């Protein structure tokens, strides 16, 4: 404990240096702006800024990305409450009761509760992240290739189950992502794969143009598809921002419940902030003494989900820092930024680069303070961002994406890949494919391949030796249960309804 507090104090000392404070502030502001703008979520912002993190050190890049991720969660609620437009997916649930409160003239109270809830959740999840990462990374040091293979495979299985939409489509996206990751020189044998004699392709398909294309450019194309429509922007008066005593009493317990729930859900693969908001909303409604108020402007329905989505952000960092495996697309971006700086996250990173870990943790606390200080008084400024015409905003985003991709390798192939994957992302999303599994598989795929080949090598080609190990088996069983339980309950429901109809 003494060691942890000492490391944290060291982290704060570094995080309070002017340059890191500036990165945290820039991240928080950019995150809030991307959260406010419908369409451009934290993923798009991270993808666009990924290449520019090269101009800063790894710690600065992590601080910037953490600020963006948290800021987007704060900003997303603003448009949900004021305009009934979710700035990003994790704020959809807030629209239900947040907008109802806004219609009743309680928009200010909803915004304050959402900001305070986000702050509490952010703080709780950072504490959880700190302890869970240290605990898990200690265990992970004893893992071999078979265990890392099991984590990768189970992570993808859970992702298929939880990412929503068609299971088959998610599996296809994962396999396409893995296939793309095999392009280039195989680093175990040194043989070129799928390069078709192209020298640039022998380096492999870079993660950056694919991510920026699928999330950044595709988002631009989807927004460009629709004709412009501007919603009138509402103003919130400062004196309306204070919730009543009754509103505080109802919302504070919901904030804590949402925080713990969100952190736990953040640990599992998939779009955890989105899932966390739905689970929090449902559980708040179930335990409420007035469930009939839900959907009509219940403040717990804003406080719980808004806290849950912020807490899930902290939870999502745990598998990345402890195991080196990103379970959400946003964490894949964070991993991409670390890899651009030549760092591979995982159990050894916390020991080798303890300064980075603790500075990032400390800067998350600072970022949370900045966000609450920025978001409540400047709510009207952020909402005005919606007034920027899309015909200026969209070309600017594409321009930044193009320069960003080019700046990393000065490669024209990367620029071409950016355009191609932008179009691919746009088309696939048009027919219901989720691009997130593709991106995650592109990152996890090489780890799965390396672990599988190493594990087979160690066990002398014995597949049973790779699978039937205590930790691996537990993980495979848990992952399988996520498919077996819903299928079994479906069969039981069908049988019950059949026997019921036979009796009547």
């Amino acid at each position, binding site marked *: 404990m003494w060691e942890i507090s000492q490391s944290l104090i060291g982290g704060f000392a570094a995080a309070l240096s002017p340059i890191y404070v500036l990165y945290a502030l820039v991240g928080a502001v950019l995150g809030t702006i991307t959260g406010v703008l419908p369409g451009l979520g934290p993923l798009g912002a991270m993808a666009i800024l990924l290449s520019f993190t090269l101009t800063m050190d790894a710690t600065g890049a992590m601080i910037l990305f953490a600020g963006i991720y948290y800021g987007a969660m704060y900003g997303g609620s603003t448009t949900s409450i004021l305009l009934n437009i979710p700035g990003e997916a994790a704020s959809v649930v807030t629209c239900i009761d947040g907008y109802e409160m806004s219609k009743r003239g309680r928009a200010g109270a909803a915004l304050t509760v959402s900001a305070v809830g986000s702050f509490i959740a952010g703080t709780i999840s950072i504490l959880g992240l700190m302890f869970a990462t240290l605990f898990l990374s200690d265990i992970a040091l004893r893992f071999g290739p078979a265990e890392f293979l099991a984590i990768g495979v189970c992570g993808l299985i859970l992702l298929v189950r939880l990412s929503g939409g068609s299971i088959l489509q998610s599996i296809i996206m994962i396999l396409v992502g893995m*296939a793309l990751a095999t392009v280039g020189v195989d680093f*175990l044998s040194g043989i070129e794969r799928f390069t078709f004699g192209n020298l640039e392709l022998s380096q492999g398909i870079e993660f950056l143009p694919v991510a920026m294309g699928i999330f950044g450019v595709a988002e631009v*194309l989807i927004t460009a598809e629709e004709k412009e429509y501007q919603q009138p922007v509402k103003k919130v008066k400062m004196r309306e921002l204070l919730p009543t005593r009754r509103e505080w009493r109802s919302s504070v317990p919901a904030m804590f419940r949402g925080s713990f729930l969100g952190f736990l859900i953040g640990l599992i693969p998939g779009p955890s902030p989105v899932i966390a908001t739905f689970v929090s909303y449902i559980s708040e409604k179930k335990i409420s003494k007035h469930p009939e108020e839900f959907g009509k402007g219940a403040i717990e329905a804003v406080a719980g989900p808004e806290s849950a989505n912020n807490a899930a952000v902290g939870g999502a960092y745990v598998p990345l820092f402890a195991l080196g495996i990103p379970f959400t697309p946003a964490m894949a971006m964070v991993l991409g930024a670390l890899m651009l700086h030549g760092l591979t996250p995982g159990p050894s990173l916390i020991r080798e680069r303890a300064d980075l870990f603790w500075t990032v943790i400390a800067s998350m606390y600072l970022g949370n303070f900045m966000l609450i200080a920025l978001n409540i008084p400047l709510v009207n400024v952020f909402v005005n961002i919606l007034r920027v015409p899309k015909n200026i905003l969209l070309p600017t985003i594409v321009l930044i994406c193009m*320069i960003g991709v080019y*700046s990393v390798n000065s490669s*024209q192939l990367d620029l071409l890949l950016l355009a191609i994957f932008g179009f691919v992302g746009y088309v696939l999303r048009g027919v219901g494919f989720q691009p997130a599994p593709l991106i995650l598989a592109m990152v996890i795929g090489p780890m799965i391949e390396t672990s599988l080949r190493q594990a087979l090598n160690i066990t002398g080609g014995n597949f049973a030796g790779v699978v039937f190990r205590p930790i691996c088996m537990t993980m495979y069983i848990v992952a399988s249960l996520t498919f077996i339980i819903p299928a079994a309950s479906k069969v039981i429901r069908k049988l019950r309804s059949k026997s019921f109809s036979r009796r009547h």
Partner: protein
Amino acid sequence: MDGNGRRKEKIIAVVLVGFSVLYLASSFRLEIGNPRNPGPGFFPIAIGGILTVCTVIHLARALRKGRPREKAAPSVGRKNYRAIAVIVASGIVYPLILGTLKFLVSTFAVTFCMLYILKPERLFSWIFLALVMVIASFIVFSRLLGVGLPMGPLEVFLFHIGG
């Protein structure tokens, strides 16, 4: 999903099958190795095989859906497909002209095209705005952030303005 959407779904399903078959066929050219010592083709063949099966099932499902029974409701506004085409074309053309025309001219061309296609009414405003955006981005990225952008005489001149 309306008739147009179904058609799109089928086309994408066919493209995915084509991609997976091509990937699987290319994987067989690589050395598979053996379970004790898997070669570079081991993993791609496994991935390609499963991907082919999945995409064929997906295609079969897409074909089985057939035509929609009811006529779809008309969409609220016409979609701006011209804008999509121009933005994608700009992205493809940009790397092809960047080497020859260098940063300022090529970036100006694609930025202007995108601005113009999204709101064609204000031609001269967009020329001016594209010029401002390109010069501003050059100064920010090349001078302030030190990004290595393709330089011609124009860029060298701009780079040295102000010392």
